[in-house]
């Protein structure tokens, strides 16, 4: 069971991962040295990564799509490696319910999305594909970022 103090610190990082230890200490009433130790302790196990979410369209990548695919069983491992290294793939998950992978892709335009699916399908026998183009992000990475809701975890 994760102690309440630790959850308060983690909630602060969910709100702003670049927050200084001083600010986190002020908001959580946890001493700076304790916060430092906790962050080191949780690094690479509970904390996977501190990252920055950006607006890809401002870099000219105007098409984002969540693509679900089912590949031939024998091609699954090679497909996984392909997706792991593909530059346009931002995130990939192994999923269930009739599909193998959920791919979050970032592309210049819709044509590039279609080209990606064609290339992927050409390399690995695709049994099923479903594409959902993202129009707008309403909420992003919000789970566990609210101190007032931490009681639901405890």
């Amino acid at each position: 069971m994760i102690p309440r103090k630790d959850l308060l610190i983690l909630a602060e990082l969910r709100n702003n991962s670049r927050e200084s230890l001083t600010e986190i200490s002020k908001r959580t009433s946890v001493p700076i040295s304790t916060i430092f130790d906790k962050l080191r302790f949780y690094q690479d196990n509970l904390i996977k990564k501190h990252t920055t979410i950006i607006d890809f369209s401002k870099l000219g990548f105007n098409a984002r799509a969540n693509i679900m695919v089912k590949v031939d069983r024998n091609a699954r491992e090679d497909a996984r490696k392909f997706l792991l290294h593909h530059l346009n793939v931002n995130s990939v998950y192994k999923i269930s319910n009739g599909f193998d992978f959920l791919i979050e892709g970032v592309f210049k335009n819709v044509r590039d999305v279609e080209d990606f699916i064609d290339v992927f399908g050409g390399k690995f026998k695709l049994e099923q594909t479903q594409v959902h183009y993202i129009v707008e992000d309403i909420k992003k990475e919000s789970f566990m970022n609210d101190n007032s809701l931490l009681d639901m975890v405890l």
Partner: protein
Amino acid sequence: MLNEKELMILSELRKDSRQSLTDISRKTNIPVSTIFDNLIKLNKGIVKKKVSLLNFDVMGYPIFVNLIVRSSGKKNVERLLLSKPNVNSLSRTKGENCFFIQCFFRNMSEFESFKDELNEMGAKELKEFHVIGEIKREVFLTNESHIKMALENKEDLFFP
């Protein structure tokens, strides 16, 4: 559009948003003062959020589900989704009243209750995809090849 230095700084922040300006300077050979000035500009425009990605499974939330929901058109479904703390990310997708939802639950019973609420509020089609493993996450723009791709985009905008 960003220049190469700005993209390099952004790339470092994508890899580790808690890096000090000194560390970013060492890796990019960009002076700390320049990074500081660029960060102000980046935070106003392109940066949406700085967030730590956690292992919610270890925290007691092993049920990680992606849902595709089509609502009947009323705002009820969207309002419900915005109010629910289990919803990690919510996007509108192409198609009438369609949403893509990423959420976490303690157990299947909690997830089933959430689905019941959605149906009561007017969710018409609901498809669920349970995540059983993460292969990679938030990796775009974390290496030199991505920076090169973004710079090529910049050229295309001026020379289509």
